């Protein structure tokens, strides 16, 4: 991706901008200090994760500036060598992925389908339905936790499979709460697709499914990518839903893994810092690979 993606909108005119960007030494220094301030806390976490376990309370992490040779990847090898032990770091990493990937795929595809229906469908009441969807965007997840938990139990007693305490239960919940924003974003994008395109297809006798698959879906790729990236990072970073719907499940995502270690921070900070870095790396890679799409999704999600 291009590095300029974060600027969101390309520069238009040279004159104004170049006049703004004349030499300003003081401003440059001030902004450099702010940038350092922004970086330092994360660097601290990284350095702590690279220091021996015992060093945490003995001296500040910044003392490595004078003795960088003390850094070690011991903490990482220790945590990863535990292998797939339930509740371990590697297990949590996999659990996070197992929750996040299906959710992302489901939200993106179901939102695209629904948005197609809302934009190109010819049933009555589409506008009213869209308004409901917009209204649902701000509903706090807390509203649904208790009723959905009992709904899951009800489903369990009827079918023999209770989604409560399983990854399936978490995914279902995330998908439902990801949909309003997903539909909102996709609908707004599809709205910009000229209707004539579809009319032409219809005259040629293409069915709705075919129009969706062959025309609208390919055109909507940029929006779908924004939605998918946004959704991925959102779900990857969720704590509350996993905390509640995984219940006492031994396999927990990274956020729950970190939460469980917090109680005894001083003695566990080597685990917390190492797990924290691991949990951060995945969304960071996604962010830097698809910066443009993420920023766009983020800006569109300004109402969430």
């Amino acid at each position, binding site marked *: 991706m291009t590095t300029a993606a974060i600027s969101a909108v390309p520069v238009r005119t040279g004159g104004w901008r170049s006049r703004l960007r004349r030499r300003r030494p003081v401003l440059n220094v001030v902004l450099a200090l702010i940038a350092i301030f922004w970086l330092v806390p994360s660097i601290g976490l990284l350095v702590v994760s690279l220091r021996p376990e015992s060093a945490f309370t003995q001296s500040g992490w910044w003392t490595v500036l004078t003795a960088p040779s003390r850094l070690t990847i011991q903490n990482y090898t220790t945590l990863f060598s535990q292998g797939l032990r339930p509740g371990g770091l590697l297990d949590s990493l996999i659990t996070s992925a197992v929750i996040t990937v299906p959710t992302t795929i489901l939200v993106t595809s179901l939102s695209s389908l629904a948005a197609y229906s809302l934009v190109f469908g010819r049933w009555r009441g589409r506008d009213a339905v869209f308004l409901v969807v917009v209204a649902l965007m701000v509903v706090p997840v807390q509203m649904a936790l*208790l009723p959905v938990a009992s709904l899951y139990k009800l489903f369990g007693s009827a079918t023999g499979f209770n989604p409560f305490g399983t990854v399936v239960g978490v995914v279902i919940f995330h998908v439902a709460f990801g949909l309003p924003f997903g539909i909102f974003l996709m609908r707004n994008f599809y709205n910009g697709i000229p209707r004539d395109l579809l009319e032409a297809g219809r005259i040629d006798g293409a*069915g709705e499914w075919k129009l969706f698959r062959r025309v609208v879906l390919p055109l909507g790729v940029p929006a779908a990518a924004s939605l998918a990236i946004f959704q991925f990072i959102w779900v990857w970073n969720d704590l509350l839903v996993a905390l509640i719907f995984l219940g006492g499940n031994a396999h927990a995502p990274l956020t729950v893994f970190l939460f469980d270690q917090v109680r005894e921070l001083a003695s566990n900070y080597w685990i917390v810092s190492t797990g924290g870095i691991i949990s951060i790396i995945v969304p960071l890679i996604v962010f830097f690979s698809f910066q443009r799409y993420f920023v766009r999704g983020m800006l569109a999600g300004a*109402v969430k």
Partner: protein
Amino acid sequence: MLSGRTFGLRRPSTARAVAVPVPAPDTPLGAAPLAMAKQPGGGGGWRSHTGSLLFILPAAIFLGAIVVYPLVATLVRSLFDNNNGSSFVGLGNYKEIFATDDILIGLRNNVIWVIVFPFTVTFLGLVFAVLTERIRWATAFKTVVFMPIVFSLTASALIWRAVFDLDPHVGMVNAAVQTVSDVFNPPGLYPIDKSAGQALSNLASTNVAATASATLQSTSTVSSGGVAKLGLVGISPFTLQMLNAQKVQVPSAASGGVVGVVWRDFSPTHVGVKGTVFPDEDGLPGLHVSLLRSDGSSAATATTGLNGAFHFDNVGQGQFHVQVDSSNFGSGFTGISFLGTQSITPTASLSRTAQALLSVPLVDIAMIIAMLWIWAGFAMVAIGAGLASLNREVLEAAHMDGATEWQTLRRVTIPMLLPVLIVVFVTMLINVLKIFDIILNMPPGTSQQDASTLALLIYNTGFTANPATGLASALCVLLFILVIPAMLLNLRRIRGT
């Protein structure tokens, strides 16, 4: 062309720049007819246009079962009792909310967040957006400041919990404060940490006693030509090692002066024997000692050597006490409890309910700083996008008319940006109303209750071993009611035009 397209987001507006993904130049819209051309005619699938109704079905089922139904269920549940929900209590649960101090603390914190955070983060975002327009490395700056958004709030909370840690060996902020503090209030070589239960009087062993002015003083007097021996205990071997202490050596008496020694009154070979200077005992180096006249004034000062010995020369006539000065025991800076419950408003003398309503615990400020670190990047990029989409000609015109940069900003740019600023403000408002992860992870256990918010209260009431389901549901409804204005604003913006 099609009916029912009376609203939507087709009309361009400044707010739209933020709310809607404007099809970017790279959108393959231009290639669309080509894609059509590849379409083979005919084909199966749904032939009827109403067939597309089926497309919305999966989403509708999810939304109906997991979002809409629970909305109603929680609303109903909030009117029933806490146990199994069999008896109707009307608004009883809501009354309980406002009659429980612990819940009021949470509501108060929500109010603090709402007052402080959305405004501050929008302001910061505006400042950053405006300033980055004026530097050449804007992309690098924006990336750095934007980055924390992709971290989980849990990870960010843990990062900042360490940053604000009480121990200056762990917490960066306290380490910085300590560095400054040590210049003005340096710690002694033998610090006494009163908060850890240490006391000066515990150090006194032989011929020495603690005074009211935080010094140690010899109990016996000494005169010119005499030798004073002061025995202390409770000094850690680690401290002695750090100070390079040597074995104790009692200096020989000198005429006209007072000599003496301060030593560690503990011998490994004579455990329990106090008051005798054994050769395997350590001297206490680096202590500031004074010779006091009988009226309490200082006749001379000295510092003990590595073997604990000190000398006062030409002291004159009279009886003297030897004093070990208080500066030796100063603990210096021991850390500010940024994540503690200390209120920055003076509420200590008020009633418990008044405290719950009016206190502003330090931990709230620490968490707000962490949240600013997380969200300022979003505000900056959103406002920056709005800034970039402004009409340059208007800005050029202002410049031509002789307006300074500041005037242009105040009179032209900010008014034009207002819709974007409102969107960012409202987004951040909803965000902090629901704030949960930070509250759960950043404050240590001891200050969690003082830091709680509505979302945390819901978690702690509804999802413990012994849940109060009715009360938790009422809290959920309250949270929902609080976001309704934002919901209406969204709807107005969608329909707006």
